[in-house]
């Protein structure tokens, strides 16, 4: 919001006052102490006093980290409380992020000890599941990063996912090639991105409006063609080959990390490589500098001779390719066939990851992993018959994003010109 322009002398003297006592760190501290106390005092007594086993494999066998469920719950809860207290006391300001992470980690571990007590949680399976669930979110969020850092809001990620998933299934089946499927998925995303770019950049339509309408268009198009083509003749239109898992000899034998990172499919690597590539591109190359300039202050960028609209077109279209490839995850990796509205809001979780990750590639990766973990955990809990409803864990990405944009724990800020069409005067 723009600051009030009617500042009086009194207001000015107030702003000159020393820093507030309740600064960001202390507010965070209160939050962490509260969740720590919840973990200790609520989860602790609820946790059964049985062993919680975290196996280092994909099942119940093999080496495991074991701890008494109740003890672990209370212990890790106390870790969170202590970390929160440190923040609250205003200590260790230089290590604020580390202490905060420790506090949140304590809370998560406490929750896990409570839930796993008397059962087991296979760590490798959890980690690889988290990574796989995060893949489309990362790709979708990267598409958003590209568009929004150059000033075009992209809420059509969901539509790009759907077109990508549909294209992958359709062409993948007709060509019986998973790579043709992946390619056409990217093209599917590109189609929606092209519509978004033309309508938003050329015809100056409100970008959020375009995004929402394009989502509906993609939903209708894919649903319509699904019912007309795929439902009537699934074998020739809707049975794409699955993406193969590639195992890198040697590296895949490293415990835990090996099977997660080096015995997996191409999309996982693509997502991780793109995170590094886009981070490098945005911070270290001429294209990145220009993109950020166009997203923050297009008039200034134009003045020094950068083609604002051209760069925006380029970035939105690149984003479409990436998001479309992310859509391929749903058909080529996750299920093996297209279904109506199969993305079910994943595009909006990707949008949440983009915002929660503060419009940066690594932030988006972190947020996507966090959300992927929440989804994986939700599945685990519902299979394990937990008393905690999986729906509430699934709400986590959305609620976390609301908390982030509301600035309850440090405000996230969008690029300054995000969503504003550039009209050359």
């Amino acid at each position, binding site marked *: *919001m*723009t600051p*009030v*322009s*009617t500042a009086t002398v009194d207001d000015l003297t107030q702003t000159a006052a020393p820093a507030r006592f309740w600064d960001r760190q202390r507010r965070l501290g209160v939050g962490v102490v509260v969740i720590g106390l919840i973990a200790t005092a609520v989860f602790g007594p609820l946790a059964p006093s049985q062993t919680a086993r975290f196996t280092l494999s994909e099942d119940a066998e093999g080496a495991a980290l074991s701890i008494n469920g109740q003890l672990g719950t209370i212990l890790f809860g106390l870790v969170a409380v202590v970390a929160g207290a440190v923040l609250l006391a205003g200590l260790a300001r230089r290590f604020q992020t580390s202490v905060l992470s420790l506090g949140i980690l304590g809370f998560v571990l406490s929750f896990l000890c409570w839930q796993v007590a008397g059962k087991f949680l296979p760590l490798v399976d959890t980690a690889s599941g988290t990574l796989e669930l995060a893949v489309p979110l990362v790709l979708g969020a990267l598409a958003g990063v590209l568009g929004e850092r150059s*000033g075009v*809001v992209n*809420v059509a990620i969901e539509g790009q996912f759907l077109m990508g998933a549909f294209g992958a299934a359709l062409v993948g089946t007709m060509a019986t090639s998973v790579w043709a499927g992946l390619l056409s998925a990217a093209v599917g995303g590109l189609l929606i991105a092209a*519509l978004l770019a033309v*309508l938003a950049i050329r*015809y*100056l*339509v*409100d*970008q*959020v*409006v*375009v995004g*929402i*309408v*394009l989502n*509906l*268009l993609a*939903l*209708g*198009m894919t*649903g*319509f*063609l*699904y*019912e*007309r*083509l795929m439902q009537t003749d699934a074998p020739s239109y809707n049975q794409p080959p699955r993406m193969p898992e590639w195992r890198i000899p040697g590296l895949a034998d490293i415990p835990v990390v090996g099977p997660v990172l080096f015995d997996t499919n191409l999309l996982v690597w693509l997502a991780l490589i793109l995170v590094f590539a886009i981070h490098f591109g945005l911070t270290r190359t001429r294209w990145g500098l220009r993109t950020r300039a166009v997203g923050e202050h297009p008039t200034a960028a134009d003045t020094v001779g950068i083609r604002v609209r051209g760069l925006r077109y380029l970035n939105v279209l690149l984003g479409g390719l990436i998001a479309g490839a992310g859509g391929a995850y749903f058909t080529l990796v996750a299920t093996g066939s297209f279904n*109506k509205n199969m993305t079910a*809001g994943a595009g*909006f979780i990707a*949008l*949440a990851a983009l*915002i929660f990750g503060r419009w940066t590639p690594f932030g988006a990766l972190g947020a996507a992993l966090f959300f992927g973990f929440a989804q994986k955990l939700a599945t685990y809990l519902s299979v394990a018959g937990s008393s905690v*409803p999986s*729906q*509430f864990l*699934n*709400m986590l990405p*959305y*609620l976390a*994003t*609301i908390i982030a*944009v*509301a*600035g*309850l724990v440090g405000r996230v800020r*969008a*690029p*300054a*010109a*995000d*969503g*504003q*069409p550039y009209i050359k005067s």
Partner: protein
Amino acid sequence: MTTDEPAGAPRKPADEPAADPAVATAVKEPAAVPGKEKPGDDDSFLSHFLHNLWAANTVTVTVLSVIMAMVIGAVLIIVSDPAVLNTFSYFTARPGDALNASWTVVSNAYADLFKGAIIDPAAVTAWSNGTGTWRQVVFPISETLTYAAPLVFTGLSVALAFRGGLFNIGGQGQAVVGTICAALAGFLLPLPPVIHLIAALVAGLVGGALWGFVPGILKARTGAHEVIVTIMLNYTANLFLSWLILQKGIQQAGRSDAISEPVDSSAQLPAVGGEVRVNLGIVLAVLATAAVAWLLKRSAFGFELRAVGANPAAARTAGISVARTYTLLMVTAGGLAGLGGATQVLGTAHALTTQVAGNIGFDGLLVALLGRNRPWGTLAAAVLFGALRAGGNRMQSFSSISLELVTVLQALIVIFIAAPALVKAIFHLRAARSARLGASMAKGW
């Protein structure tokens, strides 16, 4: 946004050839709307009419948008029909086959769309012969109005928020919470007939208002962008519904699937009866439209919200509390969407399911855009969307064309509406005299 009223002061048409005599009179005559024409002015009336017919004014753009959407829809119908596509394989040899087949499949589909939405001549004939009932005659209209009623509410919700400069994408979530609260009040409260219905409607209103309050207060207090918050709240509401519906006392006794207890008959919106499903909801929708129109035009709050929507900084300087306006506006918008959810569950669905609110929130967004964010325009747009939906049902069962085509048509119509410059460019329309082009209310996060 574009306006469909003639501008108070006649604007100079910018890019028109001055040599055209019709234009010359048009410039002299500010009254461009046919109804407001002075009597005894037939010549210029006709020329005005013709002149404005092909200008990029609201009506022309809307009509052309609908036509273009239908044309693209027709292409989709043709390319997705293998039998018709086959005739295209020998197009150069016998083009008549392909054209005939295409025409048949498209005209049948759109004829069914019309028969399902407005009136079926066969039913009228049957009724006049005495073999059919009046219910069959009014059935299509009844379906149209039934589908339109919730859309009016969600559309008004979005339109009202737009006028105050807020983009309420949360209509879906607010409608879901509205259905939840209305349904809970509908089967948990033991109340006498009329009071029960009012209580259930109020519950829906309050639920939606509460869900609208969150983005409102966050926007006012912290500046959190309402689009982000409302998107996130949509999915939160859906997940909450899918949890709630499986709880003891909510889930219908003896059912294992996700469906709630049915709403008591005392809390259901009274319908005409039989196959004619249209209920009190559409009457309430018209009343709500009138109320919103009054709110916007005549009330102090309406003035404030329009001022804030036009320029928050200026409104603040003028002494209007922007924070209070934003909060109150989102509460009102949320309440309207909640009422939309309530009419859905109390009028037609009668029980909660995970899909009870359908897509009414997002459709409401399209309806508001199509209605140019004006109350009565929104009502008309909702009826059009209701008609498409009702006709789509018939198209699905009679021509076996998926209902999803209606979603495509709706999205396309709104894309063209939102980009009037695109329509203008495609059809080489003249610049409109009274309507400004460009839906530019764009602002970032």
